[in-house]
Structures are given as structure tokens and as C-alpha cells.
């Protein structure tokens, strides 16, 4: 393959000194080594796993065209995100039902979301649950992303991120989730 036929012009006139035929085969091992080294380098430096993104749609703040429909409180679940990677949830109005403290793991939050969704669907003729996420000042960005992600996994489309109210802050303070 990498050989060229150089066997031309065998005998020359007279007693001239014949140069020895040399094979033009080149040892490619070093070149291959180099090529693979460079490949390795480029594989390691490129960003192969491109960052993914999660779309977040916030309700328009001064949208006057759509009439805000009143939401039945029995169908809403409120998540209060507190400090130390803990959250509190309750269904209905704040203060009327006792909030439950929970973590963000798949066995805590996701399970509760599924359970409550089933419960509300059963008692409201198949209407889905509405989730309101209220991050407090001591919750982290990661907490918000985790909650939105869990809601995506559980397929709850009716959700919103809303500012927390003082009443709800008091609930968090009482349970030591806000200092």
C-alpha cells in the first residue's frame, strides 16, 4: 500500500555503482501513536455533554387580557421551600391545615406529590392538582430546580412560582426552617 515500486532501471550501462534498492515502506507506528494521542487530547478537551436546559414559564405580571380564574383551595397544594434543604407542604389555606416537613428526595417529595395528586383527582372528579411553589429567602436555587423537576416527572402542569407571604414565613419559622 504505502510502497512504491522503485524497481525500475535495473541495469545501467557500464560498471556503474548501483545504489541498493530501498523499500519506501515507512514505519507508521509513530505516526499512529501521535494521531491517537491527539485524538485523546481533543476528546478530553471538548465538551461532549452539552448542558441541558429546563424551560421555565412564569406568568406575565401585568397581563390584563386574561381573566384570572379563582382557584379552589382544596385543589391546591402549596410547597414552602425553607432552609437546610427542607420544605413544608400543605393542601388548602395556610394555617388551616397543618403543614408537613419533608426533604427533596424521590422517596419524599415525589411520593407525596403522587399521593396528593391521586387523592385530589379522586375527590374532584378527575381534576388535577395545582401546585404553588413558594421559595423563601433561605432556600437555594437548587431546591427550586429540584422541585420544578419533580413536578415535571410527576406530570403536574398546573404550577406556579409565587412569592412567599408573611403568614407562610411564620410557618417555616415555627418549624425551624427559616432563621
Amino acid at each position, binding site marked *: 500500500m504505502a510502497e512504491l515500486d522503485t524497481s525500475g532501471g535495473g541495469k545501467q550501462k557500464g560498471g556503474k555503482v548501483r545504489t541498493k534498492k530501498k523499500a519506501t515502506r515507512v514505519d507508521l507506528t509513530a505516526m499512529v501513536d501521535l494521531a491517537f494521542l*491527539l485524538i485523546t487530547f*481533543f*476528546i478530553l478537551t471538548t465538551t461532549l455533554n452539552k448542558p441541558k436546559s429546563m424551560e421555565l414559564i412564569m406568568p*406575565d405580571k401585568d397581563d390584563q387580557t386574561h381573566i384570572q380564574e379563582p382557584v379552589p383551595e382544596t385543589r391546591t397544594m402549596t410547597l414552602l421551600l425553607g432552609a437546610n434543604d427542607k420544605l413544608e407542604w400543605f393542601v388548602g389555606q395556610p394555617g388551616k391545615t397543618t403543614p408537613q416537613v419533608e426533604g427533596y428526595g424521590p422517596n419524599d417529595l415525589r411520593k407525596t406529590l403522587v399521593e396528593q395528586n391521586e387523592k385530589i383527582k379522586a375527590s374532584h372528579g378527575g381534576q388535577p392538582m395545582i401546585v404553588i411553589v413558594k421559595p423563601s429567602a*433561605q432556600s437555594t436555587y437548587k431546591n427550586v430546580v429540584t422541585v420544578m423537576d419533580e413536578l415535571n416527572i410527576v406530570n403536574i402542569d398546573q404550577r406556579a412560582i409565587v412569592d412567599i407571604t408573611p403568614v407562610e414565613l411564620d410557618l417555616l419559622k415555627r418549624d425551624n426552617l427559616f432563621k
Partner: protein
Amino acid sequence: MPRVKVARKSTAIDMTAMCDVAFLLLTFFILSAKPKTQDPLKAEIPASTSITVVPETDFSTLLISQGKVFFNVEGDDVRRKTLEIMSSKYKIGFTPDEYKTFSGVEYFGVPMASLRQLLDLPSKDRDKITQPGIPVDTTNNNELYDWVHSARLAVKYLHDKDLKIGIKGNSQEEYPTVSKVIATLQKQHVDRFNLITALKSAK
């Protein structure tokens, strides 16, 4: 008894094909390579199960870390146009050299008043200094609002497309900083944006 002699074969393998393959792969990787960009501040992004890929053009990223906000918009032409719009808004003139530097600078986080200083620095030193972040006060001094607005105008003007905005936040960032940025975006009726996340499985 005559022994059967096995013909000795040379152990040299023909490397040509291997070499071809190696260089083909190398060419592929060089051409598809997009060098890792260094963020001015380390941001450990949270994980989610979302698999939407971040667009590469007409996209702006707001990096939030340690209470500071950094701004980046993709595309050299867009960056230049953005700075032109900002320059007329803030009545700060820039030299052609500074425009050229700016179109090559990714994340930056300085107030408009000290942007010239940052651009006049040699690129080595630019990475070393700690930048204070773009002012995002909810009341009057909100430069991020103008940056995002200018970038949106620039993309619309140059490519006739809507700028998509991504938020790249540090996991441990406290929510108020993020909330301020979201409020800034909502003020100009940007209600759809992307939260940039790493991939994880749903378990």
C-alpha cells in the same frame, strides 16, 4: 522425520489503514471541537431530568454565582451590536479596538462605568481580576435590564429572531438573587427562559 517448518512471518503490521482511521477521527474531533469556556466564577449547576439541549446561537446566558450576575450573549456580531446599543444608551464611547475586544469576550460582570477599563486590560489579566458583577437592583440601578434589552434588540436587528435567555445558577445560590434576575427579565416581558441544568436520571 522431517519437521514441518512453519514459515516465519514478519511481525510488522501494515499500519496504513490504522493511520488513516486515526487521522480521520482526529479531523472529526478537531472540527467538532468547541473549546471549554472558562466561567469567571465557578458555578456548580443543579441537575434535572430535562433533556432539552441549550441552543448555540441567539442565546444569552446569565451566570449567577456568589450573589453576582454575569452576562454573556453568543455570537461576535451580536456582542458588538449589543455594545453599540449600550454605548448610545449610556453615552459612553468605545474605540474600534474596544469593540473588537468586546466581541471576543464571553462572560463579563462589571458595571457599565468600568467596562472600558476591563476591555483595555490585556486578556491575560482580564481573567485574573475579580469582577463585581452587573448591578441588578430592583429600583433604579438595573444595568442587567439594559444589557438583556440591548441583546434582544441586537439579535432581532441582525438575525430577525427572538433571543432566548438561559439562567445558569450555582446550586447553592440563595433564591433572592435568582428571584431578582427573574424579576428583571419579567419587567421586559420575558416570561419564558431556560434554566441550565446538568443531566441526571429520574431514579
